[in-house]
């Protein structure tokens, strides 16, 4: 699903955030990406979502070499990725329902279908009763779950999450991680960046670690070409 092949990323200004990173996350797998703050976790996720481009090396997503993807094609690649951010990125001028519906509207779903899917998605994150609420009236954990509902509503094949539990207490954090595990159970490939080592150990999925932009630990089998 995701294959990094000697990928490096140097930001303008000269800082090398990733150096020669290689790993392979097979389809349907779930893995955690860890490392100290500034290790390059967010950068790695941004490369997958085409928010940034590699400086060197190859990055293949679902059989597509991302360096060959033109800017015009980026939206269509992103429609198959659900992205979850630490700071939610919700739109506060509209209801929970409208936030979650956004990916469906972009893809041109019919009105009736949008209602059905948004409710199914909100149901999965346990917020079915909040569809008419304004996001600002929800707690941090609830807002994060709205973000998750939005990321999965169009049934993407890949879920990326950047510090999804960053602001939450341990109990809520665990609930969120379990939610991701449930999506993985139904076949979604999941990659979660987190520095919460204790929680990650509890969850028991493979771990990839970065240290100053270098791959320092990899539970994923590099030879597995699945």
């Amino acid at each position, binding site marked *: *699903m995701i294959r990094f092949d000697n990928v490096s990323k140097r930001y303008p200004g000269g800082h090398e955030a990733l150096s020669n990173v290689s790993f392979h996350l097979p389809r349907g797998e779930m893995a955690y990406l860890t490392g100290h703050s500034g290790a390059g976790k967010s950068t790695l996720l941004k490369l997958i979502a085409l928010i940034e481009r590699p400086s060197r090396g190859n990055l293949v997503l679902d059989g597509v070499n991302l360096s060959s993807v033109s800017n015009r094609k980026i939206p269509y690649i992103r*429609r198959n990725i659900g992205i979850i951010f630490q700071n939610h990125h919700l739109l506060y001028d509209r209801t929970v329902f409208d936030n979650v519906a956004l990916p469906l*509207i972009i893809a*041109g*779903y019919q009105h009736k279908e949008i209602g059905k899917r948004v409710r199914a998605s909100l149901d999965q994150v346990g917020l079915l009763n909040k569809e008419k609420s304004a996001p600002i009236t929800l707690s941090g954990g609830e807002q994060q779950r709205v973000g998750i509902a939005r990321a999965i509503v169009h049934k993407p094949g890949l879920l990326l999450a950047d510090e999804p539990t960053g602001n939450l207490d341990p109990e809520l954090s665990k609930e969120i991680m379990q939610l991701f595990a449930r999506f993985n159970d139904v076949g979604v490939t999941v990659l979660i960046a987190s520095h919460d080592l204790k929680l990650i150990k509890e969850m028991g999925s493979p771990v990839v670690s970065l240290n100053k932009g270098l791959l320092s630990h990899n539970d994923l089998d590099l030879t597995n070409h699945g």
Partner: protein
Amino acid sequence: MAKADSNQLAKSSPFKAWGINHLRTLIASLGVMTRQPASSFMTIAVIAIALALPAGMFVLLNNASNVSVGWDNSAQISVFLKHDVTENQANKLMDKLRLYEDVNKISMINKQQALKEFKKISGFGNAIESLGDNPLPHVLTIQPVVDAKRPDKIRHLLKQLNKQKQVELAQLDLQWVKRLFAMLEIAQRAIWVIASLLGIAVLLVVGNTIRLDIQNRREEIEVTKLIGGTDAFIRRPFLYTGLWYGIGGGLFAWLLTSLSIGLLDNSVEHLASLYNSGFQLKGLSFTEGLNLIAFSCFLGLFGSWIAVGRHLSEIEPS
């Protein structure tokens, strides 16, 4: 991931999806505008005033032209032919000129006949006879077609007449009609200049409003890009907002013009009655009103298109 969406059928057909998206955005962008009624109204009012000004001047000019159409019959061109032109040649010239599209009526005052009449009227019969030769030339009198909206036409006709080799001098008898037409022509050009400048002002106003709109919705644009919204999808609401500004501004400009003309009408009627004239001011016709709105829509759309082109690409998720 290839079969990521197992339920493709739930998606509308591409064409229908396109239509649905457009309609949705069109209505949503109107909704966004009504959420900030004060600032939306101000933008619309600025557009309306900028457009009502040249539209009003255009209406007044049109009315002035209509007044002058009444002088159709009084405008007459006298064409004095050269002395050595015979009656036969004069007739030929007359036949030729009759075919000009700007010539309404043409007739000839024969020089023998003119002399006879002159003698009779003046009483200088003997004195003139002693001159021997008839001092008068043949004269053609022409009633030109008067098109007050094209005052340059009469000038052009005069020029043409003066170029004929048999013609000594062609002149428009009513100098003041000539002057009026010259003034109308200047006014017409002035209105075009003013309209162009104000049109540019409308572009800038819409462009600036949309630019602020884009800045205010930065977060929304970033999120939309992140979840796979194409540039066209993101551009659309801003273009439609510009279109709504255009529609609103155009309608309001029409209203302003009609109100202003209505206010003037009473005093104009009074003035006309002093001259025993039933003259009435005519406002914008329905077609002219629609043209005004169409022009305004174009400006709104074009203004937002410029702003979107310049500012939307600056926003990328990070």
